[in-house]
């Protein structure tokens, strides 16, 4: 029905928009990274790839190669993100599992409680913790009273009593977990909720204990949901700068996002900033396409069943 061009025409405005403000914008990053800068250290893009100047990209690479600050910040970022994702999995899986399987008549209410944080402004949620963890804040008092502060001090996870907001890697990692875990739990909840109960019943009928039915049926079947959730929260964490800025306010906990932000927005080294953005994008490209591929496959199977 209709000419084959009609629907392409309908899609055209959106396609043009994305081409200009997404694809072309990304080309500008390339042109700036492979460009030059003027005497006021403002970027001078080189639009023609034949004129590209590799100087700034090479300098950025050398910074990594010789173990400069970029390498240090990148390794710290990978460390923070890895720990934060692992903690999210550790906390998030039991919650998603309980909500999907054992919540019973509370399922709706629990789902609502899991959804609401997703829609609360991220910065407001950080503001809440800044209020709590201030030296005279309620959270600091509670952590002190419960002996958690002492435990963290003993373990070396905290430098000084009441110093939660003074450049502590522990606080940054926990803030990342707090900030992004709702985005991990919900897709995982959906994945576990969709597992056909008959698979587990079959395993139990065939003599599997509850424990081995979980480890040999439920867990493998929820693995795609786990991986998708991990990627979904790792991507924004890798580009995060505001969490560390807000709960640490120290360069000691700088992540790669902070480094880019300092070069791009605060400082006047936009060319190096563009080069670093390029490296970050290349590093994350694999994760991005992995996520798109798995979710699309999930979408097509949902349609056919």
């Amino acid at each position, binding site marked *: *029905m209709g000419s*084959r061009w009609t*629907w*392409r*025409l*309908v*899609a055209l405005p*959106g*396609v043009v*928009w*994305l*081409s200009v*403000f*997404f694809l072309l914008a990304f080309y*500008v990053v390339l042109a700036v990274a492979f460009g030059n800068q003027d005497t006021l250290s403002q*970027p001078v893009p080189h639009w023609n790839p034949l004129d590209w100047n590799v100087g700034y990209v090479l300098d950025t690479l050398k910074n990594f190669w010789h173990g400069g600050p970029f390498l240090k910040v990148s390794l710290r970022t990978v460390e923070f993100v890895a720990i934060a994702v692992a903690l999210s999995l550790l*906390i998030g899986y*039991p*919650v998603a599992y*309980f909500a999907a399987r*054992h*919540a019973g008549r509370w399922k709706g209410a629990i789902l609502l*409680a899991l*959804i*609401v944080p997703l*829609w*609360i*402004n*991220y*910065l*407001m*949620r*950080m*503001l*809440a913790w*800044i*209020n709590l963890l*201030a030296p*005279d*804040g*309620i959270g600091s008092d509670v952590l002190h009273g419960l002996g958690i502060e002492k435990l963290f001090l003993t373990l070396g996870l905290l430098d000084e009593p009441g110093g939660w907001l003074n450049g502590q890697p522990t606080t940054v990692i926990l803030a990342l977990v*707090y900030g992004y875990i709702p*985005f991990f739990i*919900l897709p995982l*909840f959906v994945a576990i909720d969709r597992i056909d109960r008959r698979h587990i019943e079959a395993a139990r009928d065939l003599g599997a204990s*509850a*424990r081995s039915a979980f480890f040999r049926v439920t867990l493998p079947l929820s693995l795609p949901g786990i991986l998708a959730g991990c990627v979904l929260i790792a991507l*924004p964490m890798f580009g*995060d*700068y*505001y969490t560390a*800025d*807000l709960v640490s306010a120290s360069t000691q906990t700088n992540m790669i996002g902070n480094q*880019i932000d300092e070069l791009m*927005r605060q400082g006047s080294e936009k060319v190096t900033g563009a080069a670093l*953005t390029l490296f*970050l994008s290349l590093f994350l490209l694999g994760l991005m396409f992995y*996520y*798109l591929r798995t*979710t699309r496959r999930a979408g097509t199977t949902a349609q056919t069943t």
Partner: protein
Amino acid sequence: MSWLRNPWGRPRFLMLITGGYILWSVVPVLLAIAFAFNNGRSRTTWQGFSTRWFTGETGSVLHDSALRDALGHTLLLAVICVAVATPLGVALALGLQRWRGRGSGTVNTLMLLPLVTPEIVMGVALLLLFLRLFGGIGLGTDAQAIGQVTFTLSYVVVIVRGRLVSIGPEYEEAAADLGAPRRDQFSRVMLPLLAPAIVASAAVAFAISIDDFVVTQYLSSDASTTTVSMLLYSSARGAPTPALNAIATVNLVITLATLTFAYLVYRRFAGREEATSIATLEV
């Protein structure tokens, strides 16, 4: 202590974790809201109930020009963003759904990419675009609105296309079989069926725009383009008054009210299951 030996069999252990998680995720925000009503300058010590930080004569959301303007600018951007992203996204969803063959896969990937691109990458790209290529537009309100449209567009497409899939082609085919002209097939059959998804996607775009931080910050120019999120970022660590909690609370109420409205509309017309999948931002 049977749950210790077999924690998965009996859910008490899981219940404890889930309960703890929900408290941990909700209580800090509730406390932040409570302190918006503090009758004093402290954000850590309770000094009695008052609405002075919302409507008081000095330093309140209503009367402090910096706070009021930030809230106004946030809402202005959200309105522009919805007005542009909704029609653009609905058209793209309709086009993509029926566009078979060459090019559709590429466009589909292009449409999904903004959903998985870290915001700082988009912020940097758009900043350089408006600084070096579109200097005529420059930084400020226009650039901020364009940036927000670029990534809310994908959410609109995903929501509308989800609805298109669940409607299926039957209704349109029936209308065609009964002799309806093509214009009527769309305006009298498809559009009413799509309406709840359009309303829901507009609401989601509104909420995402209001809570956006990175792209909006990167494309801002002077103080007049400050939004609530930017204000929270720049003054959370200073020594602000509970007015900051108050403006965050107003922001929260607007977002949640918009989404509740969209959820109810969608549930009324498309059923609970689909409405929940929108609220969970399933992409």
